């Protein structure tokens, strides 16, 4: 997953996920769970200086 953009999504129960769009314009809903390897990729993307947009 090569991340182009990332944005939070807030659910009815108040939890969040990260809505990722990759460089092929495919969209993913990535749970904020450290065991999820896609979320590890998101965290690395943030560590590289990128920012997750706030939810609408």
């Amino acid at each position, binding site marked *: 997953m090569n991340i182009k953009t990332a944005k939070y999504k807030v659910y009815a129960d108040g939890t969040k996920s990260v809505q990722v769009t990759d460089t092929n314009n495919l*969209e993913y809903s990535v749970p904020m769970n450290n065991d999820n390897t896609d979320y590890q990729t998101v965290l690395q993307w943030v560590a590289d200086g990128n920012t997750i947009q706030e939810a609408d």
Partner: protein
Amino acid sequence: MSSYIGRGIDQIDNISTLDNLSFNGSLQTFNLTQNSVAFVPVSADALQIQIDGVIQSGNYTVSGSTVTFDFTPSGSSVCNGIKHFGVGLLTTVSDSSITTAKLGADAVTTAKINDGAVTSGKIASGVIPSTRPNANPLIINGDMAVAQRGTSTSGITGSNQFVVDRFRFDEGADATLTMSQETLTSGNAFDVGFKKSLKVLVTTADGSLASNQSEQLMQQIEAQDLQLLKFGTSNAVNLTLAFWYKSNVTGTHVVTLDKSDSTRTTCPVEFTVSSANTWEHKVLNFNADATIKASTGAIANDNGTGLRVMWNLAYGSDYTSGTNGDWTQNGVSDFSTSNQQNIVATNSNYVELTGVQLEVGEFTSATIPPFQFESYGDNLFRCQRYYHKNDTTRWIGAYKRHDADTAFYYTMPRAMRTTPTLSSSDLGFFSNMQSALGSALSNLGGYEYDAENGTMIVDCDSNYSGTHTFIPSWESQVIEFSAEL
């Protein structure tokens, strides 16, 4: 003539003295007797006949209890004696008298062992384990039967690519590849029961790898399923990896076990592709040594990656400092050996793989236990812990609240490894079972995942104008759930 000191040879066991013959100058055939009783020698060579003081040799034959000379002894000739060297000395060995030392190496052939005569007590401990320590194969989908995502993907240029379940390909150079599930109809792998394989084909070559570039096909095994390996202790087990492999590129290839968590510990093992375009069975040993037995060799008991089994298609020089068969803790630099080939160097190069099994113990091609064929259903179920796709059934019954959010309760085929990532190539549409409700869906998501039961709320935004309303149906949607390692 020197004297013989000792008892007479007629007193030695199994040497018999026969009655002397009487000659009449006309007969050539005579009856052999001992104490006037017919005597049957075991062969002509077992007899020593002396006539007129001369020991006869090669001039007579025996048949039953008669001897026939090829000349006619004269009537004046005298038979001085007949000795028979018999049972227990020359021709028949006494019972229980052959010692191990008297047997030559490899003297006992299969034909000399009676069918069903080898008992378990004759097999040394550890040569053939009575049972595997693992109930299910450590490698999932080793026969490449399950491919939930589809049977082919072309234009591969990135990492984390799947076609056949559980086998991930990382393209980390400047090549482009196609990965496909192949159907076997002939060949050595087919002959032993494999009907599917995974093929990685080079469609755009990269003949000049940068030092930090790589191409690898792998299966990552969940850590908590590998505690039986006892890595990080003095009881760490040996491992044997076996697989069927085919490539147009002959020569040295490398497969690596990579324990990636905590202190990375890796072991590359070389193997040879002898014949191009031919299925060959490879059996490779990864023996536990002091490095993997050290505490830093331990595999964490969790749901992360415990071990990566990596077929190395190409590695730049940053990754090729490993030593064949050695576990080391030098990071990624020891992923492979300097003999590693660049499979992506030429267009149309390929590797094809099936029948992958990872066994506890040290085996050879002669002793490796048979591949554990699972039913398709069991195989699929194990794969679905890491990935599944829902693309054929409509979902019934959801609630759309005051805004765009619409929530469905979804039960997965099984609990997944961890909270899955959701993605979709087609979100389909909501309907009342007759016509569409709204025109566009977006912003797929999931929450309240139940890790024990595999249920979650799947949420999607709709532009349908209704609020606080029941949504009867979600149709034509394709939703993928991934909890891959």
